[in-house]
């Protein structure tokens, strides 16, 4: 929550009109922002000061003046024709009526369009979209492109071929996740200090080396899992507040 928005809500907050999360958000901001807290304290002090002032009675001439003005307005209203009084009633509501008319018009247009589209769809059924699925080499640690992660190979293969292809498909899913995390890490890396960037690069290279050196799918999957864990930590915990990271899996 910004200071500006907090200051806008400050009067309502001090009046006790902000309930639940809104009040809690303002309270939370005031806890952390010295400037806003000072303004809130000044405002509260001003209110306390005003409350402590003795009550002031207005002069009798003020009330008489107000009454005479009201009487004059009532006489004007009575002299105005009926259609004029109706216009007077409509004038403050003109904006609402305008919006309502536009919204109703838009709803009718959308309804007509939808009905027309439904009719078209009933006539012509579109063919299903064909998503190309590339062949995944069993010993290829190269991460595939995003959006192709499926651990279960297609059911049109024979069961023995499907089972044989499954480990590579699982590896591909891990590789895809690593690839996505590396993209996120690249963005975050730019804001890190030089020594942290260097450590990250060294660690990532070592983990990639383990993936390349793996001779089977299972060790390769394990190496990818380690990379995922490391990248998640590196990206999410971009600064370490209290507890240092260990060399866990």
């Amino acid at each position, binding site marked *: 929550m910004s200071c500006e928005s907090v200051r806008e809500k400050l009067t309502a907050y001090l009046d006790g009109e902000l309930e639940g999360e809104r009040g809690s958000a303002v309270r939370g901001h005031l806890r952390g922002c010295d400037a806003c807290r000072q303004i809130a304290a000044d405002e509260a002090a001003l209110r306390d000061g005003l409350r402590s002032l003795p009550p002031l009675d207005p002069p009798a001439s003020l009330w008489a003046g107000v009454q005479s003005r009201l009487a004059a307005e009532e006489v004007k209203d009575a002299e105005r024709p009926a259609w004029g009084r109706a216009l007077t009633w409509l004038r403050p509501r003109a904006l609402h009526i305008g919006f309502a008319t536009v919204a109703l018009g838009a709803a009718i247009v959308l309804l007509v369009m939808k009905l027309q589209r439904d009719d078209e769809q009933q006539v012509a059924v579109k063919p299903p979209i064909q998503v190309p699925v590339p062949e995944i080499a069993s010993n290829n640690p190269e991460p595939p492109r995003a959006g192709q992660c499926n651990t279960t190979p297609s059911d049109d293969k024979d*069961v*023995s071929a499907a089972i044989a292809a499954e480990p590579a498909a699982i590896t591909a899913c891990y590789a895809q996740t690593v690839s996505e995390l590396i993209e996120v890490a690249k963005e975050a890396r730019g804001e890190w200090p030089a020594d942290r960037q260097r450590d990250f690069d060294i660690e990532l290279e070592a983990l990639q080396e383990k993936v390349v050196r793996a001779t089977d799918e299972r060790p390769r999957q394990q190496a990818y899992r380690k990379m995922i864990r490391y990248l998640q930590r590196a990206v999410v915990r971009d600064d370490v*507040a209290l507890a240092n990271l260990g060399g866990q899996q």
Partner: protein
Amino acid sequence: MKRPRGAPSPQGARATRFARTRGDRLGLGRALLFVCVLSATASADVTEKSRVEVQPPGKPYKQVSIDNSLGNVRIEGHDGKNVIIETIKRAGTDEAIERLRISLVPDPDGTVRITTHADPSPESKPVARSAVSIDVVIRAPRGARFDATVGSGKLEAKNMDAGGELDSASGAITVDNVQGELYTHSVSGSITINKAFGDVDAATVSSDVALDSISGQKLVASANDGKIAGRRVRSRDIELTTMTGKITLEAEALPRGRIVVSSMRGDVEVKLRRQAQTAMVVRGRGTKVDLGSTPVTVLGKWQEAKLGSGGEATVVELRSNHGFVQFLQLAVIQ
């Protein structure tokens, strides 16, 4: 057990009659669903059950290892020395069921290895993977370690005392009442762990992790695209990480503990109870941070609250780069 293929079943005929007499859409829908279920079961109506009991040559078996890409696996601990393996093969035809193989190798090193596979297709028509399955139930000595891998089948481990590793592609992993170091990982299968008494490491790429009654020294869990929910956790060292999913944790802060809960986009909600002699230093960072009613100090992007005054403080680090962070202290244990 076998029924001639294509022959109408009495249940199916009854369902069709029912739909015709009622004539309403709901009835017809139910009947169609019923027929679909019947035809689905009819496509895998040949089953073959087997039971093997393996006796250890001398010392009890130290490890049970299974790799089953064709179905579910359940591992249960028992008080005996033998390893009992029950299998159920299912397929549409006798030919297909003959192709399903289970191999059992008791190694002299104290490991029982079980693997399943399907023989390559003969010249006859190929069999789809979804048309066959092998479910395996292993009853092993409690003291044996387990190592199990499945594809899309369910993977369960229960009442084991020496820990193990569970690996799944898309099948759900469930663990109940396990001691020892536990590693579970999946690509898209959910992970549910109840009553783990050793260190736990749970990781999934795109599913959820649910943890209940975890009391090992160390708990590490991560979900790249999924939620993590932990309750009744009593680990000294806790590290939960997600990229997109919400993290909720209800735990007890132990003396000199370290609790790190971090998410990139998900909200972080942590409730901790502490012992009277344990102080807590809680730091939070997020788009909105609520560390409860305790006064907070602002330290750059972080807010810090100190609870209690004991010497053995637990450090709590809560962070969500694009989400809310909420902390609540539960009861103080005297």
